[in-house]
């Protein structure tokens, strides 16, 4: 409610509050900086957690930081919301785009209006936004996934895996990097498929494909999932077929994969913490607004972002979060 009212009031009263306010007070020294995260969607636990981080940043640094998002994951609605933030003349816009390509022109508009723009989960927007913030390098995330798989499998045995689709860039980056890493590091691991199976991020498809794979390769010892649906359904298939000898790792969320970690049908799930990503994005914007330099090696004050790397406008943390039976209950997303 707060967010919607502010947006409306801002849109309507831009002359009164925005321009006049700025003119009267001059520099922003008296006025709190306004840093707004426009997330993908309202009401899903991932972005609820991100809001926690954004709000926390606001408290820690005494700025007006908050999060808005479209009710559904509609790219057009999200672009509209960013437009109203421009009209409201906020100081910084943070964005996790539903569709990087369709939001690009709006972000360019924001830059022209002198607003600081930080993107997250959109490396293709680096350069349009001042910086794109990523929790990790995809190559590192993939390698870690296969390290965890190898560890769970005791370093040997046959394995298979699932991605959203062979055309999904992020999933394939994880898979390719992890696969190459495993070939070098764990020679006794054997990938039985020509390429990973695809689930189109759909649970039913994932469950069917994994069941079929387990039927064709009954001596399988490990499964990895690059999609949340793939990892959780691999764990469920293992449970249904009473095959606890098969180890499952991959991308996962506490809210979805926690139960499988508890039941022991999945060994580890990896992800990144949305609250920290939100906090760090806000912090980068804050530093830019204060004229502080952004460079490789700076500390962005969150776990895994203490010594970030910077390449082509993308800030990489080393913030992979590995969920296990022991720690998953600490997280609420």
């Amino acid at each position, binding site marked *: 409610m707060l967010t919607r009212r502010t947006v409306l009031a801002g849109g309507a009263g831009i002359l009164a509050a925005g321009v006049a306010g700025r003119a009267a007070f001059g520099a922003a020294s008296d006025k709190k900086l306004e840093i707004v995260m426009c997330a993908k969607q309202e009401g899903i636990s991932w972005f609820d957690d991100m809001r926690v981080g954004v709000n926390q940043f606001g408290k820690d640094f005494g700025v007006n930081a908050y999060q808005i998002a479209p*009710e559904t994951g509609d790219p057009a609605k999200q672009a509209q919301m960013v437009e109203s933030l421009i009209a409201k003349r906020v100081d910084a816009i943070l964005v996790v785009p539903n569709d990087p390509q369709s939001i690009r022109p709006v972000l360019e508009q924001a830059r022209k209006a002198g607003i600081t723009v930080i993107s997250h989960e959109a490396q293709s927007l680096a350069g349009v936004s001042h910086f794109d913030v990523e929790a990790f390098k995809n190559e590192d995330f993939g390698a870690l996934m296969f390290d965890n798989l190898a560890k769970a499998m005791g370093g040997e045995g046959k394995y298979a895996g699932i991605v959203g689709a062979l055309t999904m860039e992020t999933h394939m980056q994880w898979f390719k990097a992890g696969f190459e890493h495993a070939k070098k590091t764990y020679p006794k691991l054997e990938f039985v498929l020509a*390429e990973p199976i695809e689930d189109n991020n759909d649970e039913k498809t994932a469950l069917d494909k994994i069941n079929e794979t387990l*039927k*064709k390769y*009954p001596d399988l010892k490990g499964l990895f999932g690059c999609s949340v649906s793939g990892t959780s359904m691999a764990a*469920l298939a293992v449970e249904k077929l009473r*095959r606890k000898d098969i180890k499952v790792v991959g991308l996962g969320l506490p809210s979805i994969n926690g139960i*499988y970690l508890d039941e022991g049908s999945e060994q580890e799930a990896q992800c990144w913490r949305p609250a920290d990503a939100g906090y760090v994005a806000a912090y980068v914007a804050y530093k830019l607004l204060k004229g502080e330099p952004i460079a490789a090696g700076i500390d962005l004050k969150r776990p895994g972002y203490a010594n970030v790397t910077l390449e082509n406008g993308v800030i990489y943390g080393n913030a992979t979060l590995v969920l296990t039976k022991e720690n998953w209950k600490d997280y609420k997303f």
Partner: protein
Amino acid sequence: MEPMHEESLEPNAAGWRSRLLAQLTGRGGGRGGGISLLAGLILIYVVMVALRSPDFLSLASLLDLIRSGAAWTVVALGVLVVMVSGGIDVSFLANAILSAYVATALSRWFGIDSLTFALVVAIGVGALVGAVNGLIIYLFSLPTLITTLAMQGVIQGVLMVFLGAQPITASRMPISLRNFGTDVLFEVPLGPGYIGLTVFVIPLVIAAISTWLLLNRTAIGRATYALGSNPTAALRCGVNLLKVNLVIYSYAGALAGLMGLMMVSDIRLVDPVTLVGNELFVLAAVVIGGAKLTGGAGSVTGVLLGMTLVTLLNNTLVTIGLSASWNRFFIGFALVFIASISHYRAKLRNLRQLNFDNI
């Protein structure tokens, strides 16, 4: 196979070759011929897969096929009934996920962990939504496609906006539903583990028998075929359109609700955005099974076989080592093949009867 719609096959046609020829040229049976053609296609495909991967011919494959296809088949039977009447329902999957969502949410709300309760709610909500479909179609004489397409949108709106539906994850699902998805009637060893016959086979068999009875042993069923074949004649004969519409759309809705609950139990996740979008896959299976979009034709056996073929195509790509994109190709191919042959046969039959309707 329904006796009332079946022309008998030529007695003792010599060998399968002459029988196949007879079917392809339309001299053989009517829809019964289509059924055996479909059965033949399934057989050929199974042999092809087995040649490539001999392990495929196993009890485990059959059990997995049943688990995978049971829920889809249940909803397809409802789609069949509507299609026989000459209508087309595209709201069934939205209805399914709504029913499953309401059933799960109410179970959590009241703290009732009972499969029976969830089943009653899901089937009840499904039937109610179906009845609304039927009523609207009757009252405003609207095209069924438009009505049910609109209903699909309305249902999604209700879920997302009014109920503010969030995914209900495995840990928050009632234990009874989670067990419904994993319980088996018996198990056989598979590798170091076991594969079982899912309990889903019980609702599947009940749905198949009740659909067969509804279509073939009731006045409503006869009226449904009559409406699909020739609506004007059916109405002149005194078919009560309101009654028929209410019964068949509620029935299809009830099966959708049942299917929704089976599906969410299978994958242990109630996500309001799943399911919807797969309508054409189900419709394709029903049409492959011999139902006509124009109504008046279709059978339970046909749906069972059509769904068997489509499920087989979906669940053998890893076995034969093809990427997922191939299943669209295979399903498309089967659809065109079956539709062309049945149309061609109808054309030849009509020509012989000097009927030039569909030349």
